């Protein structure tokens, strides 16, 4: 299983390097290779998650290693599903390094299989945790789109035509990407909180107990709700939407890690 994980990380690294080579050369054959590698890495990764499920007997989203690895997995498949629906030029160049970064973090955290306390052994674990992390995957895609938007906007506005101007898609396309990601990510985020709350009722007898992770999920939820509300009412789109996608993603990351390391609570992974 350890070998499978290492192979997966290796495949992600190879895909990222190939994407970067594609970015500098813009050779379509290289792009094809990068896509193939990423798809292969995604398949290996799926295999790894299944293997871990079989080994531990529960859905492998219980330790930091497992959660981050699942995060990277959802980002990969979210990206690949987008690719299948519509094209955003050079999107993979921005997404693949983020995936690799997550995988490196996963590789550095303990791969020890945790024993779940009886309270957490429930069918709500796979439902709640996977939905919440899938939401993170789409927020991460929105974040990448936001970064691309700001770079492209900066080059057009400052009339500084560097490496990115010709390589990045139009501002319109990037804004649409942002909207698409939120349209999928926000309902998932909502569902993640709702399922978590139902599970909490089952496990601890209360829907909500202001556990730090719960609080921060709610803050994250409000950030995204505000983005969507402002977009629909006063036209917060384009540049502001891009900035907000980045702000929202920082809230996501803080909810994922900051809470565990700084604040503790029932969500902090066993250990």
């Amino acid at each position, binding site marked *: 299983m350890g070998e499978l994980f290492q192979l997966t990380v290796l495949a992600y690294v190879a895909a990222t390097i190939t994407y970067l080579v594609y970015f500098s050369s813009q050779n379509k054959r290289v792009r094809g290779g990068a896509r193939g590698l990423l798809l292969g890495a995604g398949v290996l990764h799926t295999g790894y998650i299944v293997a871990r499920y079989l080994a531990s007997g529960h859905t492998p989203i219980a330790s930091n290693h497992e959660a981050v690895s699942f995060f990277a997995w959802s980002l990969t498949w979210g990206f690949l599903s987008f690719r299948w629906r519509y094209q955003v030029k050079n999107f993979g160049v921005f997404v693949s390094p983020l995936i690799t970064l997550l995988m490196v973090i996963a590789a550095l955290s303990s791969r020890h299989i945790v024993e779940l306390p009886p309270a957490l052994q429930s069918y709500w674990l796979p439902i709640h945790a996977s939905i919440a992390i899938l939401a993170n995957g789409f927020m991460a895609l929105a974040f990448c789109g936001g970064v691309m938007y700001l770079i492209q906007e900066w080059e057009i506005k400052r009339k500084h035509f560097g490496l990115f101007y010709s390589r990045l898609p139009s501002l*319109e396309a990037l804004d649409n990407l942002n909207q698409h990601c939120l349209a999928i990510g926000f309902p998932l985020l909502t569902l993640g909180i709702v399922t978590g709350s139902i599970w909490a009722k089952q496990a601890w007898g209360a829907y909500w107990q202001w556990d730090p992770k719960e609080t921060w999920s709610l803050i994250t939820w409000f950030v995204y709700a505000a983005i969507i509300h402002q977009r629909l009412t006063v*036209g917060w*789109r384009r540049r502001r939407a891009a900035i907000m996608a980045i702000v929202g993603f920082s809230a996501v990351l803080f909810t994922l890690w900051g809470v565990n390391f700084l604040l503790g609570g029932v969500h902090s992974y066993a250990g």
Partner: protein
Amino acid sequence: MLAETIICLGVNHKTAPVAVREKLAFSSDCTVPLTELKALPGCEECCLLSTCNRVEILLVAKEGVTGSEEAVRRFLFGASGITLEESRQYSYFHQGSAAITHVFRVAASLDSMVVGEPQILGQLKDAYRAATEHQATGAVLNKLLTKAFSVAKRIRTETNIGGSAVSISYAAVQLAKKIFGDLKDKKVLLVGAGEMAELAAEHLVAQGIGKVVVANRTLERAVKLAQTFHGAAVGLDELVPQLAEVDILISSTGATDLILRKEEVRPVMRQRYNRPLFLIDIAVPRDLDPELNDLDNVYLYDIDDLKQVVELNRAERQKEADKAERIVGEEAIKFLQWLEAMEVAPTITALRRKAEAIRDAELAKTMGTLTGLGDKERKGIEMMANAMVNKMLHDPMMFMKAPVPAEEKRAHLAVIRKVFGLDADGGDSAP
């Protein structure tokens, strides 16, 4: 060598002024010149390309024939009144691998006035079609020209040579696409009805812009211009209200003062729900407040900014052209290898023909003296002779087909030709 029989003589926009080129140009019907070319002594295959920027002749000479260059030169310049001496300064002449590279470069539009423009490939295809219709081409030119077409296609897909044209109005359209993506549902407002604005609007219409609105000091001129684009005309005083509706504004009035200021546009942006606004100021002195660029989602470009984009396109093109040159070099080498293989084939045929001629002659002689043989015995003797020839030829054949460097291969071929006397009698006739 076979490669050296390929020659190319011509004039183009770089070597000859239009006054010279127009004297040499051929009409679209190539029947007469192609017939004349084919009749030149030593001409094996030929093709003729005549466009407004170039006239050139591609010819494969018979092996061993010299003086083809002069014959072609006389043909090309004969009717123009330009002497052969003068003709040298106006023309270029390529032979062998240089000619092959040249053909590939022409097809890929690397030799064009506007590098990357796509028309030349079509013109070359027409020229090739005309030549094949008159049975002027053969194995070498057929291969060379079809290869040139595929090289051009490869360069078009692997490089971005045709991607960025070099003009101000094109640069404006390119920027508009980077901002808006699709221009289909976008509106452009022309302020002032100058020639440049008209040109830019034409480009935008060609790219499928949704609607054109014209604002001008004199409404009459505005109406007239609007009609050519099936658009609407408005007065100059409606400029600010119009801004809430349009996405692109091209300003080119002769006004000495600014016609649009930051303070006027700021409230409009809220009204527009922050949809981006692309302002193009091609007037000198400028029409639009330079500070407009500081507003969120407003992109202001003046004429100097656009020139910068044009320069960028030019540099980008050069980079792509370098990539294309590399592909040309690569493909030229492949073509030369093909030519070399072509030369082994005739030697093998010649050797086989010679051996078979000997076999047939000896069989006929022997069969004449041997009487009283049955059909079965005759067949047996024929089969034995055949087997001997095949077995004897096997090793020299392998020797020639062996994968060795080009120089060595030529040496091998020379040895075989000498040992078997293939050059002395052409290898065709029986001894």
